[in-house]
């Protein structure tokens, strides 16, 4: 791709000053890693706190008195029942029950806020405008940046600027000022660690990022470690682990289908998805541990003991905190149980592996102390 055609986030100059290695990603020039390298950035995030520029992601506003009801016609989550300032992970579905995107929806005052994948934001915008109808105004907030602060020290670091932010519930949002700049702080992330995503005006992003990077626990972390962190946490990447050809049940995301929605249906592909929910799907996304040390990358064929094809790896590589190779992929339902032996064809040789429970690394999302 012509580098001149790539977009840049508001933190682009900061990435260059920090010595990042920049690569094309989803139409943007993004940092894949900084001088510390992917391994160090990954381990630092698990130990202290990593700061990620995720401004390439699509931030949207849905306005309209019945925006929640309208959005429910496209996703299987409970949006109507979403309390103020609460947020939820859900899936944008097509009529066949395929996953067009995965996203986070937050109930903000008088509107819904969405965060969607960078590679999908323009397609989602057109799709939402068409399928939500004229009663819902859909706006892409492309004048906003998004910064993630992830890791066990994230709450303590933010707490120095925002006393009390440490008690914000997981999957909740709060508006506040940091270094004099207004921002929305959401307790969520894509690493399996406690952490926050900070949505703010593009013009304020660099000052806030630099202020946070000045804290001793905080290191800049690129997309390389973002990918290894999310894979260890068992989280899906759209276009790899989920896409239009996979349903929520096949993807082992049945938990995203709210109880009321299971009873009522009314989302795209509901008949197929609810049938798979009760009868099971023919294939399932599973965690895979190669028994030897060779990583199995995306597209690696998965076979059974007799060499018969079972599916393919959809994300795979080396897990720095696991200290070895890890993968996710789809296998026939009969081979999806924990412990099932699998073979992985890497460079022409069948290599032993087995199904493991996800995540690979225990998640450490914030849980409020029992009162």
């Amino acid at each position, binding site marked *: 791709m012509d580098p001149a055609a790539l977009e840049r986030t508001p933190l682009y100059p900061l990435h260059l000053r920090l010595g990042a290695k920049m690569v094309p990603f989803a139409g943007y020039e993004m940092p*894949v890693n900084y001088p510390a390298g992917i*391994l160090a950035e990954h381990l630092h995030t698990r130990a202290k706190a990593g700061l990620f520029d995720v401004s390439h992601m699509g931030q949207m506003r849905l306005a309209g008195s019945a925006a929640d009801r309208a959005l429910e016609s496209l996703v299987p989550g409970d949006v109507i029942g979403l309390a103020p300032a609460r947020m939820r992970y859900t899936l944008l579905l097509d009529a066949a029950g395929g996953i067009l995107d995965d996203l986070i929806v937050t109930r903000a005052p008088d509107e819904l806020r969405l965060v969607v994948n960078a590679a999908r934001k323009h397609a989602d915008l057109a799709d939402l405008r068409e399928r939500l109808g004229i009663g819902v105004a859909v706006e892409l907030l492309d004048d906003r940046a998004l910064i993630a602060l992830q890791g066990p020290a994230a709450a303590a670091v933010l707490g120095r600027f925002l006393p009390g932010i440490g008690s914000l519930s997981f999957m909740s949002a709060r508006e506040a000022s940091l270094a004099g700049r207004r921002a929305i702080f959401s307790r969520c992330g894509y690493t399996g660690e406690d952490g926050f995503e900070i949505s703010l005006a593009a013009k304020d992003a660099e000052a806030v990022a630099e202020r946070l990077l000045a804290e001793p626990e905080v290191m800049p972390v690129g997309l*390389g470690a973002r990918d290894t962190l999310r894979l260890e946490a068992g989280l899906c990447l759209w276009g790899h682990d989920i896409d239009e050809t996979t349903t929520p049940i096949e993807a082992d995301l049945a938990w995203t289908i709210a109880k009321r929605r299971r009873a009522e249906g009314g989302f795209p592909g509901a008949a197929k998805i609810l049938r798979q929910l009760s009868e099971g799907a023919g294939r399932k996304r599973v965690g895979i541990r190669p028994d030897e040390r*060779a*990583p199995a*990358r995306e597209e690696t064929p998965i076979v059974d003991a007799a060499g018969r094809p079972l599916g393919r790896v959809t994300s795979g*590589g*080396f897990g*720095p905190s696991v200290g070895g190779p890890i993968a996710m992929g789809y296998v026939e339902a009969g081979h999806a149980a924990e412990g099932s032996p699998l073979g992985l064809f890497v*460079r022409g040789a069948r290599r032993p592996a087995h199904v493991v429970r996800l995540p690979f690394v225990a998640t450490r999302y914030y849980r409020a102390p029992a009162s």
Partner: protein
Amino acid sequence: MSILRFTKDHEWIRLDGDIAVVGITDYAQSQLGDVVYVELPEIGRRVEKGKEAAVVESVKAASEVYAPVSGEVVETNAAIAAEPAKVNADAEGEGWFIKLKLADPKELDGLLDEAAYKRFVEGQG
């Protein structure tokens, strides 16, 4: 006296007598990033100039290591299989991959010397 040569695929080869040591260059390891796995050929395997002789994997991706010249694998570096990070730490020393008994030492003539490789890397931007 040893002869040191390089390939445009970023391997180095150092010939001492009729045995050559092969590895990837420091530039190659810096481009790969953290090396997490290496796959080495069996002793006795015959490798062909320009064909895959080993595999090196970083966190991000797998890459082939090509044989700079043809020959028979007489030794492999167990230390980098056990501790792949040695490739990053000392790519042109302790991070060597294989030792080859050369089929035809004249094949070295077509490779780059140190100055030519340095110019080649600088041209890579």
